[in-house]
């Protein structure tokens, strides 16, 4: 029983981190109509920013998360303004491809820059809090507990922000119709910039939260970004709530799959393949995803 609860709790923690990554990706997709193929690199950079902030500025681990989110927010805004701009004009004929290529270029750029600057070897920031919580059958290291709680707080804050604040509603309006939003006085370009910044900040925050649990490495974003792609497709492109549910379910499925399938080596490979297979099937049968919003339907 305790084996099951251990797997479940680990799956939940990983699932929450996935959800956070995917929520950022979804936010960018719903407003800009662009899949950010550089999301995994932003996640990785978030982890490193947090590490160096803790190491050299002497901040507490949670302060590192805040710094990482702030830094990635600014980076996202700068990247959007410098590189993503042509997507909104007639300067580019095929906007989807333009966006895929430049964001994928960002991945190549950042992940190799990380190898040059940070070195290819993994680093480990200090834990949020040493020790382990033991509650009956539940065994949970405190750093995982704190990562999970912060992730929940960030997800709630994102949901609240999108639903209840003027800026969040303006973002939602742009995601529904750029033209109509412009008619009622919302500047769609500015909303796109903000959405990219916020999405990047969420990726950076997720990277900073996972850093003390798993080690940091320049390729740490490669796997989570594929999971995030899977989640946003299954959860419905553009639905933040869907990506939260999708993220938690995927984290659970993977954790239990690796734990219970025979032959651990194969189980690891096939639980990852399982998610990708879900993506393939979802796109073939129900391209709007399980929680898709009608206005973001596949065109």
């Amino acid at each position, binding site marked *: 029983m305790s084996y099951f609860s251990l797997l479940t709790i680990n799956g939940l923690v990983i699932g929450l981190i996935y959800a956070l990554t995917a929520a950022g990706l979804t936010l960018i*997709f719903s407003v800009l109509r*662009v*899949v950010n*193929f550089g999301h995994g690199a932003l996640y990785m950079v978030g982890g490193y920013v947090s590490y160096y902030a803790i190491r050299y500025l002497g901040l507490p681990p949670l302060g590192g998360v805040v710094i990482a989110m702030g830094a990635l927010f600014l980076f996202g805004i700068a990247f959007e303004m410098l*590189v993503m701009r*042509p997507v909104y004009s007639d300067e*580019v*004929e*095929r906007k*989807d*491809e*333009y*966006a*895929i*290529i*430049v964001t*994928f*270029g*960002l*991945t*190549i*750029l*950042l*992940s*190799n*820059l990380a*190898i*040059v600057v940070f070195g290819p070897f993994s680093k480990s920031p200090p834990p949020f809090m040493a020790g382990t919580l033991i509650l009956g059958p539940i065994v949970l290291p405190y750093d995982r507990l704190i990562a999970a709680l912060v992730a929940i707080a960030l997800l709630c804050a994102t949901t609240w922000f999108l639903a209840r604040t003027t800026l969040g509603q303006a973002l939602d309006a742009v995601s529904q119709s750029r033209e109509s939003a412009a008619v009622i006085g919302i500047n769609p370009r500015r909303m796109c910039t903000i959405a990219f910044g916020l999405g990047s900040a969420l990726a950076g925050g997720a990277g900073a939260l996972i850093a003390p649990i798993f080690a940091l490495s320049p390729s740490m974003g*490669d796997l989570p970004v*594929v999971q995030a*792609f*899977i989640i946003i*497709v299954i959860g419905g492109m553009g639905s933040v709530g869907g990506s939260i549910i999708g993220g938690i379910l995927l984290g659970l499925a993977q954790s239990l799959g690796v734990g219970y399938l025979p032959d651990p*080596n*194969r189980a690891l*490979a*096939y639980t*990852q*393949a399982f998610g*990708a*297979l879900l*993506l*393939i099937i979802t*796109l*073939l049968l129900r*391209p709007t995803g399980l929680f898709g919003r009608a206005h973001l339907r*596949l*065109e």
Partner: protein
Amino acid sequence: MMRAATSSGKPAAVWVQAILLLFALLLPLWGGAYWVHVGALLWYYALLASSWALLAGFAGQFSFAHMAFAALGGYTSALIVLHMGISYLPAAIAAGIVLAMVVGALIGFMVLRLSGPYLALFTLAISEVFRMMLMAEEQITRGSLGLQVPRFFSGDSDVPYYYLGLALVAGSLLFMGFLLRTRIGLFLRAIREDEDATRASGVNTTRYKILVFVVTSGIASMAGIYYAHFIGILTPNMLILPEMGIVIAMAVIGGIESLPGAVIGAAIVYLLSEALREYGELRFVLLGLALILVQRFARNGLFPLIERIGRRPAPARADTTAKSTAEKSHAS
């Protein structure tokens, strides 16, 4: 670069291609073993970049599964030779190409309804599932340990591989160039610009979308088979995302809407990355930067800039982009 006389009225481009072809033919005379080896590997990337340019640049099917087709061809041919004996090599090569073309048709059929980011994510998932299968089924593929593959030619020299690769690149460029000059090329570009309008004009878009997947998958598998029997070892690393990234960068930097451009892009990227080997990962930082900058400021890549030399400052559009509706209506 081998596609001489792409069209009249572009003297600079024809001369550039002819000079580069001559250079490529003569390189083994003075290049030395190292550069012959580099050149032979370059042809692998050139095959992939040019066929991906046809798929993504001309037909607008932005696929991340291109390396998976190379791996499918390579592994199929290698496994058949390993189990049946080297005398079955021709059959193994044919099987690899045919299998890739069949799977290409299947994927082309599955993605008929998908476009843009959905197509990219779909093909990315296909490629990852295939890579994980190659990793996991160790009894068959030997996983990340690598599958030892018999080479095409006995002896240590890479010169035969170099000329074989060059012939494959030249042959497939001629074939794809021919395809694009027929009305199929026009239909593919029309599908890229506006699929609904193309279908409304009476073009069977389904047929041509599947066709372009079949052709490009076949060429990618040929590249993979060439690579397998040249390098002599296959690992699932062949289809990791950074490898696909290099091929995309090659095609985009050279010119995604030009087949010789993609080959020139492959040459620039691969030769530079070999020449600057001492700089390590910094080369790929520059590659990522170059990819973003080219896409941001010179969207059709570098080759059209070469083409433009010696031409009058004519209309700004490259000949491969059919933007105006007037051009589009040719498809009907």
